[in-house]
C-alpha cells in the first residue's frame, strides 16, 4: 500500500518529517504518511511548490526541461520533490529537517516512489 511505503520511507530516514504522494495532473495531494498532521492549506502549498519546481505538463518555470527531482533548502529545512520514472504525473513531496542526508534519502525515496507508481 502507498501509505506503508511512505511510512517506511519516513521511518528509515532521519530528518524526514512529512511525505505526501501527489498527482501533478490534478495538482492534488492523494496520500500522506500516517504521522502527517498538516492542514489542507499546507498540503496545497506543498503541491503548488511541486508544480513550480518540477513543472506540470511541458510548462517549466525554471530551466529548459521539466525536472525529475527538485530540492529546495533554506535554514529551516529541506523539501524534496521527485517524479516517478514511468508516470510523470506521480510525484512524491517530502518535508525534511535541514540535517537530512540528501543523497541517501533521494535514492531511497526514488526507489519507493517508482514502486508506488508502478503498483508493485
Amino acid at each position, binding site marked *: 500500500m502507498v501509505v506503508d511505503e511512505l511510512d517506511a520511507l519516513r521511518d528509515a530516514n532521519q530528518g524526514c518529517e512529512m511525505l505526501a504522494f501527489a498527482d501533478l495532473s490534478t495538482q492534488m495531494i492523494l496520500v500522506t504518511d500516517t504521522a502527517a498532521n498538516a492542514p489542507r492549506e499546507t498540503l496545497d*502549498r506543498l503541491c503548488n*511548490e511541486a508544480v*513550480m*519546481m518540477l513543472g506540470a505538463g511541458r510548462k*517549466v*518555470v*525554471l*530551466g*529548459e*526541461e*521539466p*525536472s*525529475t*527531482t*527538485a*530540492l*529546495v*533548502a*533554506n*535554514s529551516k529545512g*529541506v523539501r524534496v520533490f521527485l517524479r516517478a520514472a514511468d508516470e510523470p504525473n506521480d510525484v512524491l513531496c517530502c518535508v525534511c529537517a*535541514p*540535517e537530512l*542526508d*540528501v*543523497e*541517501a534519502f*533521494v535514492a531511497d525515496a526514488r526507489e519507493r516512489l517508482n514502486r508506488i507508481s508502478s503498483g508493485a
Partner: protein
Amino acid sequence: MSDLAELAQKISALAAKDTVFETGARVISTGGEPSPIVAILNEIDDTILERDLEIQADGAIVNLIVSGRRLRGIAAASSGADDVVGHVLSREEPDMVAAAFVLLSELCGRAQRLTVRYLAPQPFGKGGERGISAKGLAALWKIDLDEVPKPPMERFLSTNRSAAIAMIHMTDGEMQSSAGDVTALQSILDTQLADFRGLQTLGGGAQLICLEGALSDGSAAALAIHEDDVALIAYQPDHLGALHASWRAILG
C-alpha cells in the same frame, strides 16, 4: 604583541559566544572558513600544555600531539602515511615536515567541517623533542595565518568548482564571475529568474534550489541565493548531496 596580551586575546577567543560544540567537540572550521589547515595551526598555536588534539574532518580522524604551541607530531591518522605517524617533527627533517603537511591536507584539506577534542597526552617521542611551532609550520608550509576570508557565496562556488559544468555569479544584479559554457544559464537568468523569484513563497534568507534534468543536455541546474548574491550552476546530478552539504555548511 606582548605574551600577556596575546594570552588574553586567546582566552577571549576561546570564550567567544559563537563557539559551537558538536557531541563534545569544538567546531573550528565550517565550509572551509577558516581553511582547515589554518584552523589546525590556530589550535596548535592556542595549546600551551601538552595535549592530544583529536581532529575530526568529515569522516577522517587525526591525532596531533601538541605542547607549548608546537606540533610535536602526528600520533595517529585514520588513513595513510605510516612514515609520518609516530615520529617527532623536526626542522632537521624537512621531508617529514612536508609529509605531515601532505597527510593533513589529504585528510582535512577539503573537509566541510572540522572539530577538535582535547585529550590527555599520550607518550610520544622523547622529552627534549619539542616539535615545530604553529608559526614555524605556517612558514614552512607557506600558509597565511592571517588570510582574509572569502565572502560566503565565493566559498560555496569555490568548494563546488569541480562539480560545476558552468556557473554564473551575480551580486546586486552585477556579474561577478562566470565559468564554462553559460549559454543556457544566461538564458534562464535573462528570461525566467525574475518571474521565478516572484512566484516563490518561501520567504527571505539563503536558499538553494536544485533541479535535476533541468537543462536540455541532461545536466542539473542549481540556484543559490544569499543576501545580494545569486548564483546559477549547471552540474552533474550525482553531486546533489555534496552541493547541499556544502551549501548547508557555508550558507545555510
